[in-house]
């Protein structure tokens, strides 16, 4: 069952843009760091979708490769970010992203 559809490219792009904007809104609105991270994942995923769609436009593998790099980036980001989340909740007893603003002068 090897099939691929011909889909209007701009529809895929609009979907990707919509996902990206939803994710961005999430990053801006949420205070809970877990939700911020999830929104970031959504944004990255949207980028990946755009890349794959662009790759599909010319039937080239490059789009999928960029998606894989995004995947690797996401994996690395999540590994570190979740470690930070655990430290955050352990030290400040809160998941508020602004809880750790000890840097202000």
């Amino acid at each position, binding site marked *: 069952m090897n099939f691929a559809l011909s889909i209007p490219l701009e529809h895929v792009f609009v979907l990707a843009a919509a996902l990206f904007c939803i994710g961005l809104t999430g990053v801006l609105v949420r205070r809970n760091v877990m939700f911020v991270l999830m929104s970031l994942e959504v944004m990255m995923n949207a980028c990946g979708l755009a890349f794959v769609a662009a790759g599909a436009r010319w039937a080239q593998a490059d789009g999928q490769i960029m998606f894989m790099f995004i995947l690797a980036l996401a994996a690395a980001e999540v590994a570190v970010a979740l470690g930070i989340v655990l430290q955050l909740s352990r030290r400040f007893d809160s998941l508020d992203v602004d809880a750790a*603003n000890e840097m202000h002068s």
Partner: protein
Amino acid sequence: MDALWLIPTFPLLGFLVLFLSQGQLPKIVVAIVGAGSIGLAAIVALVVGNAFMDAGAEPQTQLLWTWMRVGGFVPEIRLYLDGLSLVMTGVITGVGFLIHVYATGYMWDDHEEPEGFGRFFAYMNLFVFAMLMLVLGDNLLVLFLGWEGVGLCSYLLIGFYHRDPNNGYAARKAFVVTRVGDTFMALGLFLLFRELGTTEIQASLVAANIAWPEGSTMATVIGLLFLGGAMGKSAQVPLQTWLPDAMAGPTPVSALIHAATMVTAGVYLIARMHDIYIISPEAQFWVAVTGLVTLLISSCTALVQTDIKRVLAFSTMSQIGYMIMALGVGAWSAAIFHLMTHAFFKALLFLASGSVILALHHEQDMFKMGGLWRKLPIPFMSMLVGSVALAALPLTSGFFSKDAIMLTAADNPAAGMVFWGGAAVAAFMTALYTTRMILLTFFGEAKTAAHDSSGWNMNGPLVVLCGLALGGGWFGLGIVSGVLPDGGMTTHDHFSQIALVTMAMPLVGILTGWFVFGSSRGDVTQLLGTVFSENVRRFWYSGWGFDWLYDRAVVAPFVALARMNKNDFVDLVFKLAASTTRGVHHVLAVIQNGRLRWYAWNMALGLVVVFVVVMWEVMG
């Protein structure tokens, strides 16, 4: 020929086994692996050498793999075997093997580093491996890899007894000083690559002959840079100061550094790149001068040393000086010939002195020795044979090679008689200090109790090396002259005036030595007791004050500059920068408040602004 790659592989495997086992193996296994790997390499070298000779001594290469591929720069790990590298390989593996066997006995009951047996042999094997890569590599990059590997291993081994900070200092000195030479070497390499576009040795030599006319400046510059590299590795003036201090390592290490590996690297490099020096006689002349100066300085220094190993160290410098001078005057194959015979007798001398030192419980001062010839017959015989070869008495191995060098030097059009005269003086001095060493060590009254504890694995190599030191001169090196332009044949026949003087110098030296140091004679003692000679002695003893000079010329100004600069105007610039930064910080701190969402907000805002601006431009 297919077995060529095995030669460096065995030492590498030995290193990996010993290194990865982390000293967990029993000593007997370590000894077998450590010495056996070199032994196997020596056997393979023998087989390969035989096949090579049978095949008519045609240069052969073996491509192992391509290192990397960056644009047009494609260095390959390729082994190259011709007469020159075969001789080097034979010396490294053969003499190296004997040294390793000796070391199994020498290091067995080492009380300073009882846990270090495995580590010692791991480094030794790596040392041999690096040196083999240096001589077998067909690419200057591989050569450089071996070059640096040799430097690293010498650092590790000189500082082997790392509990004493002085040894660590000696190791560091060796590393830093040779690094100066390495920098020259690297610069030469870069320059060569820029000019000729390749780092393949053979290809670059061919290209150099085409690209550069006789006396070309570029060839001179590269030749001098390579000479700088050789100075560092081969301990030539002015980068020679590390070698005497390198005696801090265990004696087999000294033997390995001085006889089979490391210091011969510079000689090999110049011999390998000989086309460059033929293109540029000017560079070649400076090679000869370097050799001559080293030769004279170090043989004088050797005369006044009290530490038996330091005497040998300075004698190595002078013998390497002979080789370098030989290269400089065009006695190419004689240089390599001397390299080989020197490897035999210098390994012999070091190992024999190691036996003496071990028997005296690590006593190295010759003035505390004496009367040992009865108690240590085998080391005594070995030392005697080695000394005779070092002094180049006729019919010993050293005689043939040194004779060839000196007679060729006399032919040199630029300053033949100077070179010959210097070499002859040095030959005289060599015989003198050799006699002094023998007399002080083995004759006279015994000053320290000796316990001969050497077994077959220490005496065996000595006996073999005795044979080589005596008879090694008969080998002849026809295969090398196939590679190098043969400058070895002189116009003087063996009974001309100059040849006779050359031959007589060692004999005169030995007789003088016997006369001066043999037994206390009033006049001589008086002569040596004058203030002038005492000053000379002290000056020579310090190695002509090079350490002092470097301390004053390099270290002291640097320290002074640093001290001067500790609290001065330069800091103002930084303080200004600091206060500016602090001022800006106060402004920015308002913005950078550690609130993550505030940052996110700004990023998003920036994104939108950029987007709008771009849109404006595009649509606009």
